[in-house]
């Protein structure tokens, strides 16, 4: 609305919104702050906000004691691998449904979505058993496959809504210009859809990074990603607030940064295009 708003109104809005925003953000802020305190200061009564002796010691201890980097690496491999694999399988499928729709396209899309709604716990044992049988338990490869499968419907849906926005004319022009199907997808569709593909990858990387059912139940020491690393702080290390905070900060920092870039895509991806 192009209408002048009194600056008094604006000031009130600002104060109000910032207070609520900071309140909601406070647990994260507090975790980050605490990670720089000594253990004694972390549990000081009353709590200290800014005027403590800033230290990086906790980070060093966490890395040394529980090998943070190994879990980080696992997280990156699992989230990155499942996202890449999902895109590789999802792009052709979404291309088909967006540009060569048939009577069944809608049903297939909805069916794919419905697989996402299968409660994980309902199929926990079969997957567990299959993983043991195939030697996939506590392997990064096994998790890459599972996370790819649970996120594939979202990947295909997001790509589908992005592809739908590309005019068919342009693909037909490529066909008339003598491009084979492979070239059409490689030189025309993909470059045009890069922003959409990037958003899809970003959101799915975040979802895979934060997934905390399969990663907790299908891993042990070897392939455990950061979700499991943090869960291991449940007790008794959890009582060491500063170290817990350092570990937590390290686990969420990469994704918080990525998350800032993906606000818009989040809506599209998680509502399956139903809210724009």
């Amino acid at each position: 609305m192009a209408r002048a708003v009194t600056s008094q109104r604006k000031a009130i809005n600002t104060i109000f919104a910032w207070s609520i925003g900071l309140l909601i953000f406070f647990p994260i802020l507090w975790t980050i702050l605490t990670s720089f305190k000594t253990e004694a200061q972390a549990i000081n009564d009353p709590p200290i906000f800014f005027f403590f002796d800033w230290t990086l010691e906790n980070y060093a201890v966490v890395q040394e004691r529980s090998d943070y980097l190994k879990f980080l690496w696992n997280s990156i491999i699992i989230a990155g691998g499942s996202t890449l694999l999902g895109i590789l399988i999802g792009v052709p499928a979404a291309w088909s449904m967006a540009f060569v729709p048939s009577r069944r396209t809608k049903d297939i899309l909805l069916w794919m979505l419905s697989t996402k709604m299968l409660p994980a716990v309902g199929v926990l044992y079969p997957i567990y058993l299959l993983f043991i049988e195939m030697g996939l338990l506590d392997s990064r490869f096994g998790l890459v496959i599972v996370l790819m499968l649970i996120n594939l419907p979202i990947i295909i849906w997001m790509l589908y809504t992005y592809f739908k926005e590309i005019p068919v004319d342009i693909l037909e022009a490529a066909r008339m210009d003598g491009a084979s199907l492979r070239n059409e997808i490689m030189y025309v569709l993909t470059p045009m859809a890069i922003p959409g593909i990037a958003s899809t990858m970003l959101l799915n990387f975040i979802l895979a990074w934060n997934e905390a059912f399969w990663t907790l139940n299908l891993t042990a020491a070897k392939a455990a990603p950061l979700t499991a690393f943090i869960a291991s702080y449940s007790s008794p290390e959890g009582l060491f607030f500063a170290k817990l905070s350092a570990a937590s900060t390290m686990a969420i920092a990469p994704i918080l940064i990525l998350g800032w870039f993906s606000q818009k895509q989040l809506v599209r991806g998680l509502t399956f295009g139903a809210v724009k």
Partner: protein
Amino acid sequence: MATQHSRSAARMMMAPAVVLLLGWMLVPLIMTLFFSFKKYLPLRGDTLGGGLEWVGFQNYVRFFSSSSFWPSVQTTLIIVGSVLIITVLLGTLLALLLDQPMWGQGVVRILVIAPFFVMPTVSALVWKNMFMDPVNGILAHLWKFFDAVPIQWLSHESLPSIIMIVSWQWLPFATLILLTAVQSLDSEQLEASEMDGAPKLKRFWHIVLPHLSRAITIVILIQTIFLLSIFAEIFVTTGGAFGTKTLTYLIFQRVLDSQNVGLGSAGGVYAIILANIVAIFLMRIVGKNLDT
């Protein structure tokens, strides 16, 4: 609008995704169904190779009539229901607030959305220890500041605690989607009603709320799907103790802790049915949207 060539190519390119998802859906589902009719206790020597005893609907009956079934359903419903009410109500208010003109709108939005990106194990653990710890937690300090006795959050007020943690995680999602919906509201419509002399509250009630109703429905349905299967938040905080055992958690315990696969599988089938009831409604809405 396509030719035979492109149609056969399309089928080929869709095949991997369809086959994988079909397998991912059918294989475990059939196995779960199979186990749910069997006595299967791996710790007592039952093996797939050795043949499992067919027990008919016994697992279903036992799971249903066990003393933990109804409490777990009740816990599930309380958690899901409360989180939905809190996130939708606060989410709507926050969305309306964030839509107002202010300084630093972008930053506030990021602050509000941030909790969504925190992995569930981290948020559960941070809340459990640094906020809800009865001695050193921030909330305990706050209570003491007002000369009140700190609450034993996770043991005495376990359900509200879990609800609080989960609401904190999901409020950003509701806010973000409702904010998107608010912003898509046609400002001419609002201006027209203003010209017609409708007061603010009436405008909200008759124009903004109906416009948001679809987004609210979607938030409710999608959150329900995810909330029905929350796991890490309970796993890390109470481990299912103090009356926080949801259906998901109960099944998890039956299957992996006590290794009663048959019983757990029967529970899994119940969970699948429950999720599907919600899913049907969600699919209807999404499907309708697909036509336009």
